[in-house]
């Protein structure tokens, strides 16, 4: 036996593929559309959610037997809010420019359905170690999608990756731009994020028959 039992490992690997919170459960779409125009923002968002969800899951799991079920949503909200404020302040202190790009969306992690969904569905019913792994798995699943979408949107929309030009200089017309290539202004807009996400879902479902719903 390795570090994790088979069941525990599944908590991490399942949300990455067959039970992905974004592409299969279609949660957390709002932030996936809003901040994926740049890869860096996507990455920071993914890390923020990783922090909030894994710690939050553990906290909720520890308190699961003492929370009265009538007020559990409020308790969950307070936990998320506290963690989100920590993330927000850290970003403001160490990456001010980036926190301006992410603007309200860091604050809106509070309303990210993935987090409340995992609290409700998993942390309230499982022990802290499992809840921690579940939090890691789901936020990685969310982050992977964010980074894929962010990669394509930044590459095709701005010709850069992490702000570094990779296709040449559009103004001095070097690299690809010298043969007439131009950045696609549409892909920076939110509708194209939805379409890129849709294409990822399309590819995933066409490769895995089990995911296709009956209708």
């Amino acid at each position, binding site marked *: 036996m390795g570090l994790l039992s088979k069941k525990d490992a599944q908590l991490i690997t399942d949300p990455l593929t067959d039970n992905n919170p974004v592409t299969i459960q279609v949660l957390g779409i709002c932030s996936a559309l809003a901040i994926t125009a740049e890869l860096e923002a996507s990455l920071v968002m993914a890390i923020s959610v990783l922090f909030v969800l894994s710690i939050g899951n553990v906290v909720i799991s520890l308190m699961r037997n003492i929370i009265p079920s009538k007020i559990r949503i409020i308790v969950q909200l307070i936990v998320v809010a506290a963690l989100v404020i920590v993330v927000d302040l850290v970003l403001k202190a160490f990456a001010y420019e980036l926190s301006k790009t992410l603007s309200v969306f860091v604050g809106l992690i509070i309303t990210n359905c993935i987090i409340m969904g995992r609290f409700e569905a998993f942390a309230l019913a499982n022990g802290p170690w499992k809840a921690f792994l579940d939090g890691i798995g789901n936020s990685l699943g969310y982050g992977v999608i964010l980074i894929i979408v962010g990669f394509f949107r930044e590459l095709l929309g701005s010709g850069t990756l992490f702000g570094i030009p990779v296709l040449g200089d559009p103004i001095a017309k070097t690299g690809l731009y010298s043969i*007439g*290539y*131009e950045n*696609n*202004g*549409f*892909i920076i*807009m939110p509708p194209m994020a939805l*379409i890129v996400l*849709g294409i990822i879902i*399309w590819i995933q479902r066409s490769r895995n028959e089990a995911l296709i719903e009956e209708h």
Partner: protein
Amino acid sequence: MGLKQNLHKLKEKYEGTKAAPAFNALHTFLYTPNDTTHNGTHIKAVDDLKRTMNTVILALIPLVIFGMFNAGYQHHLAFGDIQAVTGGFFSSEFWTLDNFMIGFWKILPLIIISYGVGLGVEFIFAIIKGHEVEEGYLVTGMLVPLIVPIDIPLWMLSVAVIFGVVIGKEVFGGTGMNILNPALTIRAFLFFAYPTWMSGDKVWVNGAVERSNEIIAGAKVDAISGETLLGTLAQGKEVVYSVWDMFYGFIPGSVGETSTLLILLGGLFLIFSKIGSWRIMLSATLGALAMGLIFNGIADAGWIAEGSKFYTLMSTTFWHHLLIGGFAFGVVYMATDPVTASQTNKGKWIYGFLIGFMSIMIRVFNPAYPEGVMLAILLMNVFAPTIDHYVVQGNVKKRLKRIKVKTT
């Protein structure tokens, strides 16, 4: 052994293989299939989807040819080689071989790319999914070159066509299932993705982009400006073209949408061959006139200051809106697309009227996106099923009431 027999043999040879749909499509495109019924009680009609599409293409051919002449004419006019024609629609200075050839060599690649890429995508999808190749692209492929600026780079057109066919049509299930008009989806993609190539005063005249690049590189030549009328009006400038120029189509614009006269004839042809819906065309025109009159009224009543950025477009004589921009083309060839338009007769009136109404509204209030008709049609495409739903429900209610009256 004619071509038909050869095609038939090819079809039989590939029967059951993955490429079967491709050969089948080639065969039925050119000839009636061999396996139609020959006796019995069936009524046979030749106007299948392919014939319908071909009729629309027929109605587009005059516009393609006019577009080629106009491309050369605008090129020479902008470069100062010739004077503006004054002798009416048939004046010989316009219909010269030189004009035609310039346009021909610019527009032919657009048509080839549009059909090549679009049909390529259709064939690939048909082979992967194992169904027949759908005919839907036949008309779209001809519409696309007509609604883009003449200087659009070919690779951009290819990207847009792939996007339009895949996202606009195939993901919904192919021809007949799409919500949005594919040709307009392609144009909208180009419009938002590469705005510098879809608006401004350079792209509408063949050679203007090259000339401005030469100037940037240091050549001492005059800049070429070939703005569309809508672009001119949106900036509050005077229009130099006469109303007859607008009607005949001797103005800069997308390749095939400038000649209102020929579009009118094409529209009549579509109405008489019962392919285009006269209800949509008429109601859209009425809608545009209504909105134009409202804006004229606002401008006349002095509710809007003359310095306002909307003033010039608002005070444009209301019926001029029908002649400038892509309005006529959009209404005749795009809004009437039987797949994306409303299906009910009452719905068609509402759908058409709102297209006309919104086109002019978007034109006036959004100078950044002067071509309102594209956005208006796409918007109403989305609402068409809703309109139909309420028309049908209204009908159901009316009939139920009638039953109740009878039974009581």
